[in-house]
């Protein structure tokens, strides 16, 4: 293997409209989307995509690079670069966990290229930006020649590298509903160095009603075969008065619930162990960020 060389030869196209993109997806075989290329090119260099025949660059479609305000939320299109998302005022104000997750990712040069759509389509169990989208109740919008559809972000992932995206289908945008008042957020990631892939990560987004949790959504990275949405544990917190003890107890439940594996970044035991710590910290800081006190 020589990583200076892309082993397979392929066609490359960069259409100027969404229609053409969908047309190419429908007619060409073994197409891969180039959005930022930060995963795709690495995979090509490693010879991991021997069947790829066509590289479809979506950066020629202007509308796919946009971040648009909608009546009831924000729509981030598939080609929007991570740097444009992290530096967007609307994201900073309404979806701070997403901003923090993006800023915890890789290096500035990678974030200048990479996209949120790519982070989803790569479907890595480690994907940092996915947890916040899940916890904000985000939806993933897809289009093909057959039409458009939408799934909840929490239902998007099936297995490592596998999502619900079908052949001929393009992830066009990630939609985030407007947050309610008294929403608090937290994103916590542990890596070895700053620009590392996560050993483990957690997102917490909760809504506060006085001294009680009205609702809570929790998601974790690097603890399962896909990004893990902790539905039952999050829902179990609804209506409860927030205390340090509740945060501890919930964190212990999370640690007991997850079944992580060991890999070259850390061990299963360590992940289970520190899940307690980051889960507690995330709950406490989400609560404080919502205006709550302890």
């Amino acid at each position, binding site marked *: 293997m020589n*990583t*200076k060389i892309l082993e397979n030869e392929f066609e490359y196209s960069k259409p100027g409209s969404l229609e053409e993109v969908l047309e190419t997806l429908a007619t060409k075989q073994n197409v891969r989307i180039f959005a930022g290329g930060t995963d795709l090119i690495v995979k090509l260099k490693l010879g991991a995509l021997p069947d790829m025949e066509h590289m479809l660059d979506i950066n020629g479609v202007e509308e796919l690079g946009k971040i648009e305000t909608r009546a009831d939320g924000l729509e981030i299109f598939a080609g929007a670069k991570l740097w444009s998302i992290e530096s967007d005022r609307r994201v900073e104000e309404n979806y701070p966990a997403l901003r923090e997750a993006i800023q915890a990712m890789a290096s500035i040069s990678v974030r200048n290229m990479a996209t949120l759509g790519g982070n989803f389509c790569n479907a890595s169990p480690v994907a940092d930006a996915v947890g916040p989208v899940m916890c904000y109740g985000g939806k993933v919008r897809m289009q093909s020649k057959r039409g458009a559809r939408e799934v909840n972000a929490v239902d998007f992932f099936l297995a490592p590298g596998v999502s619900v995206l079908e052949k001929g289908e393009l992830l066009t945008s990630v939609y985030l509903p407007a947050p309610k008042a008294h929403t608090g957020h937290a994103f916590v990631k542990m890596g070895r*160095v700053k620009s590392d892939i996560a050993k483990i990560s957690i997102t917490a987004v909760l809504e506060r009603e006085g001294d009680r949790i009205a609702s809570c959504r929790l998601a974790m990275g690097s603890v399962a075969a896909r990004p893990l949405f902790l539905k039952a544990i999050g829902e179990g917190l609804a209506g409860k008065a927030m205390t340090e003890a509740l945060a501890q107890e919930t964190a212990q439940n999370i640690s007991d619930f997850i079944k992580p594996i060991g890999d*070259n970044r850390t061990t299963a035991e360590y992940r289970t162990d520190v899940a307690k710590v980051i889960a507690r910290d995330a709950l406490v800081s989400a609560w404080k960020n919502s205006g709550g006190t302890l």
Partner: protein
Amino acid sequence: MKKNLQLVGTAVPRHDAWAKAKGEQLYSDDFTMPQMLYGKVLRSKYPAAILRGIDISKAKALPGVRAVLTAADVPKNEDITKFGQMRDVGGGFEGLYKVLANGKVRSKSEAIALVAADTEELAEYACTLIEVDYEVTEGVFDPRESIKEGAYVVSSEDKDNIVMRTKVEDGDINAAWALCDVVVEGDYFTTPHEHAYIETEGGMAWIDENEVVTLRVGTQVLEHYRTMAKILGLPHTKVRNMSVPMGGGFGGKEDMTVEMYLALLTLATRRPVKMVWSREESMDTHAKRHPEYLHYKTGATKDGKIMAQEVSIVMDSGSYTYLTPWVQMYSTQAAAGPYQIPNVRVQSVSAFTNNTFSSANRGFGGTQVNFAYERQIEELAAKLNMSPLELRRRNIVHNGDPLPTGFIPQGHIALEELLAKVDKELNRTPKPERLPDGRKVGRAIAIGHMVYGRLTFLHDSSRVSLRVELDGSVTLRAGVPDLGGGQASVLCQIIAEELGLKITDVHPYIMDTHLTPLCGTTTATRQLYMSGNATYKCVSIMKERVLEKASSILGYPPDMLELANRKVYLINNPLVNIPFETVIGHISNDGGELELIAQFNAPFTEVPDLADIKSRLNPDLTYTCHGVEVAVDEETGQFEMLRLIAACDAGKMINKNSCEGQIEGGAVYDALWATHEDLQWRNGITKANNFSTYLIPTSVDVPDVETIILESGGGLGPYGAKGVGEPSDNSIAPALVNAIRDAIGTGLNLNKMPVTAEKILAAVKGIDIEK
């Protein structure tokens, strides 16, 4: 020596600063030639195997493939490893160098065949068509196993795996333990370390119009052309490397890299050939810092006087000898640290394994023992219930104290001052127990000593030449490989200083094996010391010549004149002066010599008795001190370096920016060696062979380095300078780990690299991970 220095010691921009800042500097990979081919190395699939046969017919038959070579095609496939030394030192030091594998394959990265083809892709593909018949064997991957009788023998040429055994002993170690009230003992392990230069190995070769095999390859050792000539069966005059600046070396480009392969392929095809290694190939293939398994036992009286230290070291040489015996001498000599210990015994052994070979890496055997002895001092202090700073103060060497070999360093020893300065800076505010976020704070200081200049029994020398042009500018010619450290520019600075010129008046032409005088290797922290002294010697002769001529013109004796601002002045009346250029014109008119060459020789010694080293091994040492403040999260084991203080006695700074750059760069180079950088060697396979798996710090992972530079004037280089390149990465690793120890209050799990968050967390919980 000149007293009122104008230029030396200042932060004057280097001659190559703008080209590098603007991205205009050309490196090995930036050149191309008409009809150029691409070279590629086929490497072994297995770390241990016997080569039963190689069938190259399919590869050779592929259109566009111009040459496929195996060991049988190399005129002289075997030689002894040389590193530019001018003297044959023979037995024990110079191991077998093999161009292409035959017999036993010794490591996964070993080169088996070479291909040259019209394109890089084709060369790559041709390699897959070469059929190699391997008999896969068991292999051995731990030097503690490979030294045992009956172990798998790595090479086909030796009876066992031992590379070298050596010993340094002073006093009576056996009797000394009775004098000790407190004894500490520990096992240490240091990991192989990747150089991680931005530029991988590469270059090109062609045959010039006069049948000279010509290369343009960045290397730390230009003198490899002699080995190449020998292997090719050519005279030394017919192999030339017109080298290029490097994007980093750190010892990794001290061994031969692409040179031999390029020369063979260009001779076989009679066309220019280019070869550049990919990152993975580079990390799988080039040498690493020697992994060392160390055992230390240290004893002291209850008032903190260290009386005895016994050390045993097992070094992993990997697949070949290369620089192992020399690195081993450094480790063995430095093992007892910069401490005055009356009874010392250090025994070391190095052995082959089927791992990637080990060789030079910044610090050259000094960093491994430094980690161990500074960890040992910290534990001894804890057991004595004494501050580690105080324990160090009571035992450090001072001027006049001998090393355990009996040699008394001649340069100044600034440990007392360094400790005081770093302690004052690190503890300028009282240490808080915890940060507001709850993390524990730890602080620690570690010291180190590291030689500069090569082993004195190698009889090292350097030479440079200069020519004063008729307009008063100066051409410097020096075969000094420039790794990016400013190795050539400091020489210009010395010349400009002495001749009263601006640095821009002096231009260096460097690193050509046959057009520039050979300066010797850019290794061993020797260029400023060796070539700086040669330059000083050379320019001093020219200066005298200029002053004599000016004296005859102005009518004042030479010692009343000085050179400054491109003029020769009367010292006590600057109105009496003559332009430098005018003086040069007179010298030229009168037939005076304006071109000079001068050579500087280091001190020479005889080859020591390896069984009991009792002599000088190096010219002098440089002393360092690092201070670190960390915050440790006791719930996760993660730490953050809050402060990093790097202090060094540079003797005399020549270029302030370059000197600070070395000291900052050195601190960062090894900042995360002990904790993060892990090649994940598993049975001879490098699992972390790129920068997404092998983690090096970026600017956000280390704090701003606070440099403290002492200028004692007590070095053997020009103006009393010492070398700082390698010393500056010494003592940072133990300072960090000791700061973690200070924070968590235990030394458990901290002696074996990598000291990960997982191990620190276990230590906090009181779990010994080895039990």
